[in-house]
């Protein structure tokens, strides 16, 4: 199964309809196009083209950096959704640009009314979710890969045992070979997979020198089924799994709650048959938009009581399932199970590790309650401007070390946010204030040091010209009662006072 690159993530800002758009990635030779939408392709741009060349051809090309990580996530998400059809789904990311999914349908097609209706059901559901797809069923993953991408039809079935014939007319590209091997095959005039059938295997392999030759034969053998191709499913198939499809999408939590007990009973009886209890439970809802939503619960002890399982999931909060536009199937699975009485003590590496784990777990728990990214910690940040020299960053168990600071630049224990205005008497241009009034109290300065001159961060956009930050002169002063303050004047006499007179502020107090 292969989703089209057009199926952009909904959270991504979509380019204007019909505008050429491409995702770009950075390679050794600069930026190049990684994926293109239909209008970009129509203009003759291609995958792998240098971004600069593409822009020279099409200046109106809109591009955004590719986010491989997010693409992978999206593919994984789709793979989880596809578990609706098969407990073993692999995300295929081997060849960039040719990503897709492998569904192991061994002996399962009859559940969906046969292969043909399985394909149309699968494609129909993907289509409804806005994901165009090409599908194929074949005896081997390699053959299905080839047919899904190179057959003329969007749905292809290679009848069991007739893979050879089904592949014969496909181009050799369908074998997932390196570009070098492909071009050599073509030099020999070997363009279809069928062309390879009549050649001596060893002679063919030898002509590619080294591993590449092995690969050609290996890929051919995999396609024809003489060599097994192991797949790596996105997650291990659950130990116990029960599911129910809905004729009409379930739109709300009540619907889920309604179906849950039946599922739990079915699972519990399956577990009970084997004398097993669930240690980890997962409720998966398959959404009509091609996503899966999940709720997991761990159990401190193996359990196999249907009621207990239902209660556990209810307490976890069924409302946390994101139903989107509705679910068309619901699955309950035991990801981990143990014999009911056995339970081994967990061994942990070290206490320090344990407390780190505990901290991580705490952060996880807090975030689970408060929302992702809601737990943050202050982190020193390199900036000359005092109020910008710390930032709130998402909390992780191990913060990065703070930047080195100039010890001579003393900072007060308390910074006012925002700074408060003061009036002063000071000598021009940058003399120490002799006296200042703060919160209506006049204070006489007895000791002072300064100024420490700090420029503004000129690159930050200012709301307007009148608010554009200026250079500041900071003074550490002590009044007659021994209290110490951090005052500053914003604006330099002689340089920055043309439109606005310099102003005085108190930034904070020292201990």
């Amino acid at each position, binding site marked *: 199964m292969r989703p089209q690159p057009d199926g952009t993530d909904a959270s991504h800002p979509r380019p204007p309809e019909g505008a050429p758009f491409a995702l770009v990635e950075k390679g050794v030779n600069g930026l190049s196009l990684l994926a293109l939408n239909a209008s970009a392709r129509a203009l003759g741009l291609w995958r792998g083209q240098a971004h600069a060349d593409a822009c020279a051809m099409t200046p109106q090309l809109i591009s955004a950096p590719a986010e491989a990580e997010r693409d992978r996530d999206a593919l994984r998400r789709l793979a989880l959704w596809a578990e609706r059809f098969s407990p073993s789904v692999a995300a295929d990311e081997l060849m960039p640009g040719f990503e897709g999914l492998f569904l192991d349908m061994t002996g399962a097609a009859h559940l969906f009314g046969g292969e043909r209706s399985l394909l149309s059901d699968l494609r129909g559901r993907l289509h409804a979710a806005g994901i165009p797809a090409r599908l194929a069923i074949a005896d081997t993953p390699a053959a299905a890969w080839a047919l899904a991408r190179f057959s003329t039809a969007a749905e292809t079935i290679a009848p069991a045992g007739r893979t050879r014939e089904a592949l014969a007319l496909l181009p050799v590209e369908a074998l997932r070979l390196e570009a070098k091997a492909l071009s050599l095959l073509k030099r020999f005039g070997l363009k279809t997979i069928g062309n390879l059938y009549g050649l001596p295997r060893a002679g063919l392999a030898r002509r590619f020198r080294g591993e590449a030759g092995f690969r050609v034969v290996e890929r051919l053998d995999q396609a024809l089924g003489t060599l097994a191709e192991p797949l790596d499913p996105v997650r291990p198939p659950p130990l116990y799994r029960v599911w129910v499809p809905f004729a009409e999408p379930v739109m709300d939590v009540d619907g889920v709650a309604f179906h849950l007990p039946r599922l739990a009973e079915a699972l519990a009886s399956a577990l009970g048959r084997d004398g097993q209890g669930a240690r980890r439970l997962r409720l998966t809802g398959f959404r009509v938009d091609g996503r899966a939503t999940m709720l997991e619960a761990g159990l401190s002890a193996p359990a196999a009581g249907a009621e207990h399982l239902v209660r556990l999931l209810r307490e976890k909060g069924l409302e946390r399932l994101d139903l989107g536009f509705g679910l068309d199937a619901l699955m309950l699975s035991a990801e981990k199970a143990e014999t009911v009485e056995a339970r081994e003590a967990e061994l942990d590496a070290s206490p320090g590790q344990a407390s780190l784990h505990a901290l991580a777990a705490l952060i996880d728990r807090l975030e689970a309650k408060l929302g992702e990214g809601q737990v943050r910690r202050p982190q020193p940040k390199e900036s000359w401007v005092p109020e910008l020299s710390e930032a709130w960053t998402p909390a992780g168990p191990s913060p990065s070390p703070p930047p080195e600071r*100039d010890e001579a630049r003393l900072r007060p224990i308390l910074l006012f946010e925002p700074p408060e205005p003061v009036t002063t008497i000071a000598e021009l241009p940058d003399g120490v204030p002799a006296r200042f009034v703060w919160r209506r109290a006049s204070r006489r300065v007895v000791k002072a040091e300064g100024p420490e001159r700090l420029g503004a961060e000129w690159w930050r956009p200012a709301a307007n010209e009148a608010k554009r930050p200026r250079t500041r002169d900071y003074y550490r002063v002590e009044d007659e009662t021994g209290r110490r303050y951090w005052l500053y004047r914003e604006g330099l006499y002689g340089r920055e006072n043309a439109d606005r007179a310099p102003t005085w502020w108190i930034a904070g107090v020292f201990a």
Partner: protein
Amino acid sequence: MSAYAELDIRSNFSFLEGGSHAGELVDQAKALGLAAIGIADRNTLAGVVRAHAAAKQCGLPLLIGCRLVFTNGAELIVYPRDRSAYGRLCRLLSIGKSGIEGWEVGAEGGAIAKGECHLRFEQAAALAEGMIALAPAPVAFDEAFETRLGAWRAAWPDELYLAASPTHRGDDRARLNRLAAIASHTGAPMVATNAVLYHHFERRLLQDVLTCIREKTTIDEAGFRLQANAERFVKPPQEMARLFKGHEAALARTLDIVRACRFSLDELSYVYPDEPVPPGKTPDGHLRELAFKGAEQRYPNGIPAKILALLEKELTLIEKVRYAPYFLTVHDIVAWAREPGREILCQGRGSAANSVVCFCLGVTSVDPTQQDVLFERFISEERSEPPDIDVDFEHERREEVMQYVFKRYGRHRAAICATVIHYRPRSAIRDVGKALGLTEDVTAQLANTVWGSYGAKVEEGHVDATGLRREDPRLKLALELTEDLIRFPRHLSQHVGGFVLTQGPLTETVPIGNAAMDDRTFIEWDKDDIDELKIMKVDVLALGMLTAIRKSFVLMREHYGVDLDLATLPREEPRVYDMLCKADSLGVFQVESRAQMSMLPRLRPRTFYDLVVEVAIVRPGPIQGNMVHPYLNRRSEKRAVEAKGGAYSIAFPVPSPEHGDADELKRVLGKTLGVPLFQEQAMRIAMEAAKFSGDEANGLRRAMATFRRNGTIGSYEDMMVSRMVARGYDPEFAQNCFSQIKGFGDYGFPESHAAAFAHLVYVSAWIKWAYPEVFAAALLNSQPMGFYAPAQIVRDAKDHGVEVRHPDVNESDWDCTLESPSQREGTSDGEAGASGEGLRPLRQTPTAVTPHRPLATQGSPPSPCGRSSMEKGSSEEAPPRAVRLGLRQIDGFREAWAVAIMAARATGGPFRSLDELKARVMLEGGAGLPGHALDALAAADALNSLDLTRRPGLWAARGIPGGSTVPLFAFAGLEEADGPPPPALPVAPLSEEVVNDYETIRLSLKAHPMSFLRKRMAAVGVMPAGQLKDAPENSRAAVAGVVLVRQRPGSAHGVVFMTLEDETGVANAIVWPKAFERFRPVVMGARMVIVRGLVQHAPDGAGYVTHLVAQTIEDRTADLALLSAPPLNPPRSHGDGAASASADSRDRSTREHERHRHPRDARVLPRSRDFH
């Protein structure tokens, strides 16, 4: 009044650190009333000449110094007191940059990379006599600093100061007091500075950006690596006095240092090396001797009186201005290159090269009797600058010449000039954009709006065109800062070939460092700096055409017994001019570009001087000055008048009678029919018509040369135009003259260069006319060079009746060679073929040289009978030989393999089988021919003489065991015996053979790719390119072809020229900007197109150049995939209802196929060559 001199300044020659030009710093210091400044850049003196010139101009005392940054990170600013201390500083930096300690003795460079300088304090102290040092105090210092300072003070032979500058951290007062204490402990007196990085506080922004570029970070991430404030600018003395209150002595010491350092760059005096002068002779005497000896050789029948007089006059002038050593130096290099056994082809050009002296010395082959040279034009007494001679050498052998120069003068006395690489709009926007955190595609888009490389900023219109919002604050900042950054020096690179030679050690005049290439060293100053200091430079340049010409001469000698060189080639052959008039100039030096080809039939060159004009006229100068059409009009008027037997005369623009000589411009412009075309003429107009003084003209000339960098030319505009108008000239004419001067600023092209180039135009055209097969082979053997790819050179040769043969392992050398022609070509060939090597031509004497056959018109091969009808005695003549393509044409093939194959063939005769080939060929070192060499031969279909065509050949070549059996295969059970190529290998259709030819040798002799598509094309109304010339003017036509060349000359106002090729010929499409914008993706990206538009013939109606003015352009690149094979899965008809395929999905699946097929497989043809 407090006096103060700022002595810690870094200019922007402290790359990516200093934020101001030296000129800005000097001007600002002068304006603020500083007593003097010292500029000390990081480990370099590269910027000092500019600073020196600027300081001299505004009258500010300047100290030349350097900021030494030692390998341990410690810094020391040094100022030499006098010339000898300056010499030691240069020597010190040379050691640091090259790793060579003893420059006079050792010549081997150390392992120091270009642009780096590795020095230790001890090395500096050893050469420090006469150097005043300032040790800058770090922001935060500790006892270690004090200890080190004390040690330095003790070790330094001259005065050493502690340089203190305010930090504005809040504790400056205390800090200064502590530093003063350290100063008195260590005995290094404290001196006040402001550690200047830029001339004005507003430059802090740019300086921050430079920091980001240097640290490869963005402004948001740079943090404490940025300066905390904007205080590092040149401050007025009063402000410094306020900051250093209580430390007045530290301020006063700045003036002590200024008083102690008396050195100025004006003291550098230049002495010519004396190597070329034999002992006991004077330079002038020796030059005179050589010149007369040469003259006798040049004129064996006696030196004409006119030449004799000129020679005397020039020698006298040379003696007067004492340039004899310069001419001798150039002569020495040229003579060495020409020595028997070496015989490197070379030719001089440049103002002084077109002198009789240079002709007699053999520096140039342009006969001065053929033009009237004005010697004073290039050496004038008031212009006390060295004359300018550039010498072009064969590009493949220039390195030998350079190494000779190094060897002859020693690395301590000879070095290559630097070229200062400046920021240009493209690089500036990229770096600034990156520093400000703009995403890469945004900066790439901005950078891509800049066509060409010059300009002062990124144009607003261009920004809008990208669809980016100029109001975006970051983008706005980026554009502003980019403008500041443009013209900043970025790094030093070596000049292409400008040598500086001195009598004394060059290392004591300017630092010399290692270049990026091994065996090269270069100085830190560029051409302008050297001019400023009046140091001699000889340009040793590389020219591909000279290589091709020499190879042509060799082939002519070997195969036809014709012995010619640049000077003895028959001159003024009318049929060569006939050929050029028809724009039949592919491969000919300089006039092969599209623009030149369309100019040729309009200009119709008939004499050598016409070629000089031809070379110079298709340049931005004449084009921007609107000089082209007037000149062409005058020429056609002249032709018309003379055709009727009249005499043509021109009314020259004249000044008002009271302002003098009415003929003043006739003398300047007579040769070019009253239209100024050359740089010299523009200068002469300024002097004659606008009465510029020598100095003013010099200033103008310099402003022209540096126009694009400094933009100083504007001030001369008013001066020249108003003076001309005041003297009674037409204002429009005056304005045009000046526009032309501005145009020259971009690509100045003087008559003297044009004349030298024109000579090579004539020589290469002559070879092409007389021996097209020799010319083609020589061009192919000199690749890469010129405008055209091998495929076009071969095609052009075939159009001229040359037989070209496919490379073959038993026939081909590395280079393309000439072979006996085939039987079909002539009668005498049978014997010639039998005698093999021994074909010797009958034409022996150069004077009797006639081409062996008439010129073929493009597209129609010459009839064999044409040869005898045109020439007498052609029955005795050797038939033209065939070109055998060399193994060098095969992609990825190496010269060493070819050499080994040739050697094996020479000893053991031809190979009979692949196994034999593998067994007999031994590379140097004893290894056999590697597997991929055999692959390459097979893939290129070069095994035909072994009875192997491409596919079976490849199968066989790849089956030859490379060594031990691959264990992987054994493991997999793949160890069957190898048999003959299996019959299952499909036979390739011709079209695919052609594709494979293109993939391996980038051309095909079998057929043109377009011929296979002709039917399809005809069906959509496309005509063969060859028929275009017969289409009526302004009729609509469509032509399809492979895109060969795309050209968008900067001078053509956005017009794009596309050259298309099909099996019948070449078509030239003109794409006007409007059409370009519409079809931009196609024009820029397609390899094959259909162009529909209107037919236009050359305006003069000559019919030799036909253009198709594009109206629509269609991308047919995908059609090339059709050549490889019939479609794999014929698309199903719409009635064929596949299981579930909706109309939409079928559409999709076809497109899916196209997508897989499109680019990778269509990359059959090499990319077009693009020029701007």
